[in-house]
């Protein structure tokens, strides 16, 4: 079973993802801040990470940069979530650095499931 980690400070979103993903044949767990997320990723137990970029204090961008610094960015597929007005170029830079792809909020569930299936296949 594909192990997915959600990192988002918005409980409404993590709860929804919990229902959707666990209900559609994935093993999903989540944390609500960047620091905890980073620790979990380091334990290397996940196949896919859904990472919200705009969190307070330790943002998703910080998480990505930390992973790059420690050289473990490629150990799992990182899918970025963003609702912010970050430009495509800024996001492209993160993808070039090692993130897998990006989904813009509001998240479209069919799109998300399709993307996960796509990643699992690869």
């Amino acid at each position: 079973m594909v192990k997915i980690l959600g990192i988002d400070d918005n409980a409404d979103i993590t709860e929804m993802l919990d229902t959707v993903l666990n209900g559609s044949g994935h093993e999903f767990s989540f944390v609500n801040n960047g620091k905890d997320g980073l620790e979990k990723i380091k334990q290397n137990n996940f196949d896919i990470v859904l990472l919200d970029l705009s969190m307070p204090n330790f943002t998703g961008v910080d998480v990505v940069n930390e992973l790059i610094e420690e050289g473990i960015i490629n150990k799992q597929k990182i899918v970025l979530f963003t609702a912010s007005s970050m430009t495509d170029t800024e996001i492209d830079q993160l993808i070039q650095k090692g993130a897998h792809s990006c989904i813009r909020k509001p998240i479209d569930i069919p799109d998300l499931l399709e993307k996960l299936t796509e990643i699992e296949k690869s």
Partner: protein
Amino acid sequence: MMEGGEILSEFSGKFRKISVKLIVLFSILIIAAVATSSGLAFQSVEESVLESEIVDMTGVVTSKGNEIQILHNRASENLIFAVQNTIFVDYFELIDTRGGNIYDDENIIIFTLPQKILKDKLEKWMYNFQSQFFTAKTSIIDNTGQEHVKLIFQEIAPDEDLSSTKTDAPYFEASFEIEKDNVHLQFPYYSPEIERWVFAYTTPIVTTDNLQPAFLHFEMPVVLFQEMIDVNVGRMYVIDPNGFVIADSDTYIVASQNNDIPSNLDNFEPSQFFPSINTIYGSAEFSDLVQNMKTTTSGTGTYDKDGEKIFVSYEKLPTFEWILVYEKPYSLMLHGENSLNTLRAAMATVAAVISIGGLIAVVILSQRITGPINRLANECKNQNPANLKKVTVSTKDELSDVSTAINGMIDRVNKMEKQKEEFSSMITHELKTPLTPIIGWCQTLQNHKILGALNEKQSKAIDTILRNAKRLQMMISDVLDAQKLDMEKMRFDYKEFSVNEFLDYLHSNLQHVMKPKKIEYIYNVKGNLKIQSDKNRLEQVFNNLIFNAVDFVPDENGRIEVTAEDNGDAILFHVKDNGIGMPKDKQKDLFKKFYQVDTTHARKHGGTGLGLSVTKGIIEGLGGKISVESDKGKGADFQFTVPKNSKNRDRTKE
């Protein structure tokens, strides 16, 4: 220490560099003024005075030059000649002490009699100098800084009350005045500014576009005139329009001396200081002649004075309406060649000085005033509203206050613009975040595999929530995009993709929109088309147009048709519907921001009114063009092109 002549030439050189154009203008004006005013006067004199000779004007110029040289040579070392105008301030010492100076207890220079003459001469010279080079202020100061002679051109504010009835008007105190064509002519009064008896006129400065931005107030010391009309043979005098003799070659008019300051300016009575014209000769014959002088511009005449026939020639001077009179007994007709020379020189100088001083002042002042205003206005006009730049016009007067104020305002506007940008990016983020769980839960509920099947009513309710949430999402994007387009900050992400696959995707994605209204959605691509463009933005374009169409198609048998075909460098798309359409006259405004064809529609269907303006912005940003064909009740056909690759986009943009 330099010789006077050197100083003078260096000084003039400096001026020439600064204002070559000005001097050219001057020369033209001098020639014109001299030709008109003096020429007319002499015509009459020459007719009568048979022995007259015509003096070459160059002779006059040479003699004036010598006069100036002599003045320099005789000047006290402690006299400093100071020239101040808006361009620069310059001082130089007058060298070579000949007479020495007397100082009072406070170390202030007191003029001895010869020096007093010197001072008057200097004043005269200054006057010529000032009117030729247009210096705003010219003064002579001594080594203590005390100003002894000062000439100024003064500007009067446009809103200043110039009526002579207003007793506290600054330039209309103790004097008598006439008004002619908006020009106030003032006759001798004591000017506290110059500390001399002066003549003055006040005239509005009229710019080329007929505006009156300021008034020019011009003062001329009486003594200058008095000196200019000095004649060897015969008598010359000047009558003002009120019938007072204000200068006379026979009698030194009291008011031309600066120690005769009226004690009470409020009760100024000209007759105290100026003799009446009747003192020249009090006969009925002479009175008739004076009457002629007042009514005609120039002429000649004779009157009988104590048994001798006196020949009279007169000329009304421009600007001040003074009448310059020259008279000579017949017995002296064949004497005094010099008298006519002097007359000619005097009249020419007076006429030139007055008319040119005034004219140049008007030209320069109006330039000085309107120039910066025009530049300021141009800078303001050429501003890009999205990015205001500071204006650069700076002068040393009130205008610089205006540009400082404008710059302050621009700073604030720019700051506000930045805040607005930050605010709207924050607000769109905040609005999008709650949409994720709303849309997400709806989609989760629609998926029977996750939370089980819903009954028909529940399913319909979820569909409605989802449809509206999507609409809300679109409107938020519209607001954000409209702003991006406004600031030309929208960026495009070019990737190659298949148009066929794109329309397949659109079709499946729009099912939930078509289903509730049972709209027939047809799409058709001619051939296999590939395009290099921004897929997300193009999807936004289609969403906008299709959602729009959904609103307008009838509740039954609604139909939307999307087509794509190759059109050379670009792909031509159509989005057609069989909706209510719109009248031709409303179509030109369709793509404008916040436009609703029918305002009642807005209440029924909502919408920000930004959708089509954003759509147009995106298509143009991608290098394409959009238009619409429609008529009332005939549906609408939106057609637009999108270049096949970004290279074409750049070309179309140019």
